[in-house]
Each structure stands twice: as C-alpha cells, then as structure tokens.
C-alpha cells in the first residue's frame, strides 16, 4: 500500500518534540516496512531549506540540548528511500526560489500534483 503523506502544518510542536511529528511517524512507519513518501507544501516547504538552526532555546536555567534538526530529518528520510517532494509553487510564494534545498528532495510544480497523487493508493493530508 503506497501512501503519500502531505505535510502542510509546519513547525507543529517541533520545539517540544524535537522533531516534526509527521516526519517522525514517517521515519517510524518506514522502519516498520511501510511504503511511504512525503509531500511538503504550504509553510512546510521550509523543512527542506538548508542551513536551519533551532539551537539556543533556554528557559531560566534549563537549556534545550537536542533541538529539532528538520533539515537533517528530511535528508535522513531521503537516504532511507522515501521520496520527499516539495511544492515549487509554495517555495516561490515564500520567496525561497533559488535557496539551497536538502539534497535528494524532488521539486514538484502544482500542475504535476494530479499525476503524482494518482501514483499512490492512499493520500494522507496531515
């Protein structure tokens, strides 16, 4: 069962979870043998941008030692054989055209979405 996971809600609980919960569950399901791919759209296209850092969070004397590394988590998905698609239109809307992206992500224009989605048994819009 080939499933495309569309991630649109960006930075949802990433500080608390130290990752994105949907990127994380894709890692976990892939590890369990699932055929999962990912499409980043909306604000979540920023997950594929290189050079992010969420370091330095501190509350009083408490310091976060393991901040989220979304760029790494996306690259790791690609390295596991998960196709990570990024909506070109949403990249352009956010002024990110030409910004370095994680190696391995696949840029997909909006008019190519119908064909892309048709290649999956299930599409889950998180």
């Amino acid at each position, binding site marked *: 069962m080939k499933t495309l996971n569309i991630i649109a809600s960006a930075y949802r609980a990433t500080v608390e979870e130290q990752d994105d*919960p949907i990127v994380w569950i894709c890692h976990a399901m892939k590890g369990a043998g699932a055929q999962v791919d990912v499409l980043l759209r909306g604000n979540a296209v920023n997950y594929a941008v290189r050079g992010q850092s969420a370091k330095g969070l501190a509350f009083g004397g408490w310091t976060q030692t393991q901040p989220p590394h979304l760029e790494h988590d996306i690259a790791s998905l690609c390295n596991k054989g998960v196709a990570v698609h990024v909506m070109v239109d949403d990249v352009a809307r956010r002024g990110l055209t030409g910004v370095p992206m994680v190696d391995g992500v696949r840029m997909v224009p909006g008019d190519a979405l119908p064909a892309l989605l048709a290649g999956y048994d299930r599409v*889950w819009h998180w």
Partner: protein
Amino acid sequence: MTGKTTLTFALMDAPFESARSTTALRLLDIAAARGFDISVFAYEGAVMQTFALQRPHANTVHGRSAEEENHFLPKDAIAALFDAAKRHGGSLDWVNCGLCVDERGAGEAIAGVRRGTPADFWKMAEASHNTLVIPTRD
C-alpha cells in the same frame, strides 16, 4: 481484507481544544452504528482523549452543579463507542501511541484501549478499506 467495511482513523488533537475532536467522534459514531470494524490510532495529544482521570466539574458561570452540568468527557463518549460498535456487530480497536502516552503521563486509559506504535497504525491502515487522518492544524 474481509468484505466487511473496515476503517482506520488517525487522530492528533487533545480533547477540549478543537471541534475536530468531536467531529472525529461523530464520524466514529456513524461507523459504529453501521457495524463497521473501526481502528483508531491516537497520536500526540489525542492520547488524552481516553485518559481515565478526566473529571466533570461544576460550572458557576452556567449556574449549575457538577451533576446538573453533566460535563461532556471524551473518555465517556469513547467508552460508549466501544459499546455501540459491539452492539451493532462491529468492533472498535483504539491504540494510543505509547511514546505520546509517556510524554504526557497519560498511562491510565479507559478499558479497551491498548498501547501501540506507528507500526500498529500502518498495519491498521493496510487492513482497512480506507483511512482518514484528522491532524492538528495551525
């Protein structure tokens, strides 16, 4: 997969914060009334939906005692869904993401709920005719 309709739902929202949660319960109620086999994977805050220590309270703004207020508690609605599914010849398999439970100290769930992992969600989805994810939104 058998001929009987089997549906999987993934929920993410904590109770008392979003209409998505009660909408999900409405959908589950319809599926239960139709005798479907239903699987639910509660992810992140949704593990609190079945938290057994939910308690009703009085509401002075409403001018009602706890008994009069009869506060809606998701755990009670879900317990009723377990019964409804069984009564109509179907089933409800509710799995709470174990790590999400640990994060929240929400280990005390109502009867019928089991602890699981994303692998359970994948297995449920594979065994279902369709799957609906109802995620938390910004």
